[in-house]
């Protein structure tokens, strides 16, 4: 028996085996396709659970395995005069800047309402202590097809809206809503949103109400940890999903970001979440650390 040749054969055999094992580990950690033994069975169980919930998954699940931390934020407190100035300039040009500034100061001075409400140039700005800032009566008579262009132009002209990016659109009876979400450090910050609600879309008396809820991110917490895989998040979602009167719906988005409720607090931490958006407009958030449903 040639011991040397036998060793060589064994070395090659184990080398190949180890390469295969390494690939399996890498693929499993990436949270992607079900390559591991038994994973096919889990995938088929997940498909069955989706069918039972009358849900369709028409997209690929994103990759997991990311390590993230909580995000610390404070509520954004706009200066009313500055906000009115920017909104007015963005919505209606052509007036003398100094005269407009003087009128803004008078509007601010005369405000004694709670929540604060300011009327300027045919628009109304409502500034509640907590919750979203509301701008009423923008883009009067705007055709629906021009809503996105108008919204983008509006965002461009207002510096504190520059960290909002387009999210999705929902159309209903007489109302079309464009959703933008805040972004921070490459992550979607779902808790911060900008919404353009086009009321009376398609009519001459249409107008747009703008809702702005913005957060001031302070940075990430020190402790990073791995997020749960998307498949696990989907399982957790299905455990609590009750559906809408048994109607079928499709999952149109499955993404990782940050979300929390709107707190009347000084400072808070936001957890990473898997956002699951359905084609009927419903949006669900699954905590990417604990698997609990948020919101």
């Amino acid at each position, binding site marked *: 028996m040639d*011991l*040397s040749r036998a*060793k*060589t054969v*064994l*070395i090659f055999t*184990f*080398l190949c*085996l*180890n390469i295969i*094992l*390494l690939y*399996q*580990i890498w693929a*499993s*950690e990436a949270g992607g396709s079900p390559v*591991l033994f038994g994973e096919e069975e889990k995938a088929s169980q997940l498909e069955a659970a989706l069918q039972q919930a009358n849900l369709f998954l028409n997209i690929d699940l994103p990759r997991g395995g990311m390590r993230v931390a*909580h995000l610390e934020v404070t509520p954004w407190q706009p200066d009313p005069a500055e906000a009115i100035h920017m909104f007015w300039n963005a919505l209606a040009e052509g007036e003398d800047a100094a005269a407009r500034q003087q009128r803004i100061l008078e509007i601010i001075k005369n405000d004694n309402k709670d929540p604060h409400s300011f009327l300027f140039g045919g628009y109304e700005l409502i500034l509640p202590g907590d919750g979203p800032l509301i701008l009423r009566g923008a883009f009067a008579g705007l055709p629906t097809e021009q809503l996105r262009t108008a919204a983008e132009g509006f965002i461009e002209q207002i510096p504190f809206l520059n960290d909002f990016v387009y999210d999705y659109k929902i159309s209903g009876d007489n109302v079309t809503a464009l959703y933008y979400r805040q972004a921070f450090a490459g992550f979607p910050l779902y808790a911060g949103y900008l919404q353009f609600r086009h009321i009376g879309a398609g009519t001459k008396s249409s107008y747009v109400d703008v809702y702005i809820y913005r957060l001031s991110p302070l940075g990430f917490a020190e*402790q990073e*940890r*791995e997020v*749960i*895989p998307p498949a*696990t998040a989907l399982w957790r979602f299905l455990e609590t999903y009750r559906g809408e009167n048994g109607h079928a719906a499709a999952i149109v988005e499955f993404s990782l970001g940050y979300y*929390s409720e709107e*707190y*009347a*607090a*000084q*400072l*808070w*931490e*936001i*957890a990473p979440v898997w956002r699951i958006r359905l084609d009927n407009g419903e949006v669900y958030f699954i*905590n990417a*650390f*604990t*698997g*609990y*449903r*948020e919101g």
Partner: protein
Amino acid sequence: MPERFKTFILAGLILLSLYLNYILWFGDRYLEEVALPRYEFVFFTPIPSPGLLLTPAEIVLEQRGKEELLLFRRGETAHTHLWQAISALLQRKLPDAAVERPDEAALAVLLQEASAAIFLRFAPPLPQNFFADTLPAALELHGMRLFTSGDVFYMLLEEREKSLYRWFDPEQKALETIISSAAAAAGTPTEKLPPLFVLLPPPTADSGGAAKIIVPEKENEAEVKNLEDLNTTDPDDPARTGDAVGEAGILNAEAGEREGDDVLSEGWKIAVPGSIYVPATPVAGEVLLTREVVAEEELLRAFFLDPTMARRIKERDGAIYYTDGKRGLRIYAGGALEYTAPGQNVLNNRLSYSAALLQAAENLSLYGGWPHNVFLERREKTAGGYHFFWRSFVDGMPLITEQGDCAEMIVNDKGMPYYRRSFYIPGREGRTEPLSFRHYAEALWQAVSLRQESFHRREATLLELEPVYRVLPEAAGARAIPAWAVHFAETGRLYLHWQTLEPL
């Protein structure tokens, strides 16, 4: 040389393949798959033994030949020693005791023959199996009376049915020792309020007299009827006269003299449905308090599976709120804490009282600890579980905080959906000179005068009357002010300053 090199390579590859197989099958699983609900079971204080987690609200010593009763209250050293001695004695003796349903007449004779008796009142009630395994587990114990007659030692339980436990004690040493140690201990001389009495106003403002009570000489139905007649609103009603009172056999228990018509017509009939023991001459002074501050990090580790999973929210009032989406822990700037876990609410609790009590005691020790001189004060049974309330005691008197109690907790078969904790620590320094309380009759008069609009007639039902410490939170630090706690069924609780009788 190349052969040895090949051997090393081969061995290395075999070891690597074993390691990779291990990783693939067992290693690196995700958090929620591997982490069992394993909390850090580091107790802030040890869990009290079942005999100590619920102690009698009152221990009263009655001695034949002595009119004065001795009262031992929670928070007093003598109370603790007495209760330990009694519970140890009964746990030792009860297994050998014979039990019977006593005949009323025979029981009255036995009680009359007893040279002394000790009465224990439990509020909230004690699950009987806490006390001795031989007692029925499902029953609750509200009170017990211990006495000896001849060579026999008796324990009388007066629940729905009276049960008399007895065992032969030829030397009578067991209870005698306890009774003599109780008599020698610093008990508070006390009086038991009669089931019915008349509260009289102060004679005049100038004479400096005080309100007082008069007690019916005999407690029978006829007297009660006449006393009710006193409260008629018709000024010409003959029942409002002193004759009617005289017929009813009413004597002034304080002064020993009959009262005049006018004073009596202004009297209030006070009914006392329960047993109320009032210290004869309570003495107390103001006490400075500090808030208990529980170590935040340790609390977080106790409450959350992994504290790093809990999000931190700093609220505008300075409170810090931690939540992992399922439960929330709010730590107030002053040190109070509040925990909620809505997912643990149930509609139909199946946990027994004794199990809930043990669980509550464990939780209190685990989530902040069981401070010195803190006692379970109240329990409410609801469909969602048992609601427990604890209070701190200072010198035998309860501390009544802004919320009333220092801690509260709901326990059910799913867990602990709610917990609040805000203990005060009495300071050794900064106490004012102890002064005697105003007489309780004056406090009662002040209470009915302040809340006259709550009564339809000049009659009231007194549910509680006790000296307490009322906590007044102030910027400079909280103070405990001695006060009479007066609880009429018609008015709710009133706290009256122990010197001025002003409401607190």
